């Protein structure tokens, strides 16, 4: 019961924050047939030279690390609130 209450409050807050984000459609240059798609299609022809698959994999991995770092820092910030002013996430 109490866990559901806490989780409900937290989730509602997160959803509220997400709802503040823009919800429009993507621009044309990013959509199907847009410039970026053309460039990407052209660049794909250089697959013999550039390991695109490895590149995207590493890029996703780095972005995941960034998200993890953000969560860690967020957790540290929250924990610092319970140290009577003695902690800092800076």
């Amino acid at each position, binding site marked *: 019961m109490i866990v559901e209450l806490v989780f409900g409050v937290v989730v509602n807050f997160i959803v509220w924050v997400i709802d503040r984000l*823009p919800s429009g459609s993507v621009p044309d240059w*990013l959509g199907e047939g847009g410039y970026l798609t053309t460039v990407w299609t052209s660049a794909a022809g250089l697959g013999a030279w550039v390991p695109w698959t490895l590149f995207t994999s590493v890029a996703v991995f780095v972005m995941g690390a960034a998200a993890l770092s953000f969560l860690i820092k967020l957790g540290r910030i929250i924990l610092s609130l319970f140290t009577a002013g003695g902690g800092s996430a800076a």
Partner: protein
Amino acid sequence: VNRRLTRVVLALLMVPVVLLASSQTAHAANAWHQITMQPVLPGYPDAMKCTANVKYADDAQSLYFGAGSVCQGIPDFSPGYLQSGEPGSTFKIDVRGDAGGGSPCIGTESGTFGAHPNDSTMNVVSTFGGFHVETGPHPLGCEVLEVCITLDGTVYGGDGGDQPSLPACAHVDLGEPEITQGQCIHGDVHGIELIPNQQQRVGSTTVTDYWWSVRVYLNNNQGADGSWDKWRVSKSTSFSTDSTLTGVSTGTRTLTFELAKTGTATASNDAAAKLAASKPTSLQIYALDQIRNTGTNYDTSANVIASVYPPANPEGAYRGLTQPPLCRFYYGTKLVDFPNTSADDPGTIDVLPPEDEPTAEPTVVTTNVTPDDTGTDNSLLSLLAGLLRLILAAIKAIVGAVKALGTAIAGIADAILDGIKDFFVPDNGFMNSEYSEIRDAWEATTMWRYVEEVETMTSGNVSGCNGVPLDLTLAGGVEVHQRIGAACTGTMASVASVVRMVISAGIVVAGTFAVIRIVGAGFGWAPGVGRGADA
């Protein structure tokens, strides 16, 4: 004040002792007792000891010997070769007691010793028991006072010489037998009736011939038409069939029989099944009494044997009816007493397997046997034993109460834990629901759509080797169609492979450094890896 208080405390302490002593007297009648009989061998007084577990039968007219009874001794030594008590040899048990009012009751039973694993060359150990000794027909039972065992065999050599038998008796104090009247009555049995039957005469015309006939029927009112079907009781001893006796005209007669559900039908063929599925309702005994030969024909007038259950005189009550271990009973007083024949004696009944017989056999000693003090007054020991049992019972009660309290506390603890569990543990599916709520909100944002488009764009084949197409139309209409970086074959493919390898290594190294720095930043750590001189 202190003296008075002390008296009160002592008086209170005596209460359980008195109660225990009285209850022990009341309930010890038909319990198992261990008796010891020590045959006196000529020249070897301590050479043999027989230990038996005995108890009264429920009708108190026979004494059971438990199957674990043992005789042990050292008769196989030189020069006295004492061949008695060996497995396979025979013995005789004599029981003597008081049937009440000074009337003696006696019983005799013979048997053969059984093998015992401890039997050896130098030690004789044999088993006996598993039988009963009828002690008399008196309806009040027989209080056994003495039990004797006689070892049949031959003693030869040594000082004893040949000896045909070796008797040994033990005075026992089993207490008065407890007669369990009617304990095995089940169902709606309402009584026993002795109904006069027709008198019959044997073929002889002499006045000294008499024909006795007894029939026992078990009435069953579960017949299809509601009528009572009569069944002959099986294993009726002494009078299982018609009996012919001579020279007797008056007196009493004993009837001993066993009831069984498998009787011979007298009413219909399916009566046995009906009887097995129903409860007996009454027992009727049809008996003839004093068949007199009139000289011309048999006298058909009947002499009434009146006895209706419940009888006014408990001595005439039956002992049992339907429960096999208890359904061998002696009924009433003798109709006729035949001093010169055993036909009026209770018949031999099967050995009753005692249900509560001690399973452990008496301790077998393979060394010299010393006489014990059988027959001494053990009332003080009995009192102490009873007091010990009382203490043990009290401890058991306390332990039971503690267990019950522990169970109750455990129940409360479980309830509390269940409450705590319900308070903290969310319902099944709650977390999935919350996660779905966040995911739905996120997928509605523009950022998610960006990611979605990039994912769609990059999900195709990106390992082409055709290069970047270059299609130009120069001034003058000159068209250029080239593919920059095409490296599918030839030397360019080899060069591209090397370059691809180098770039792959660079991506891996750079990505690793980036991940370390980024994750380290989350912990507030700023490593200098991948930053060259800054590290």
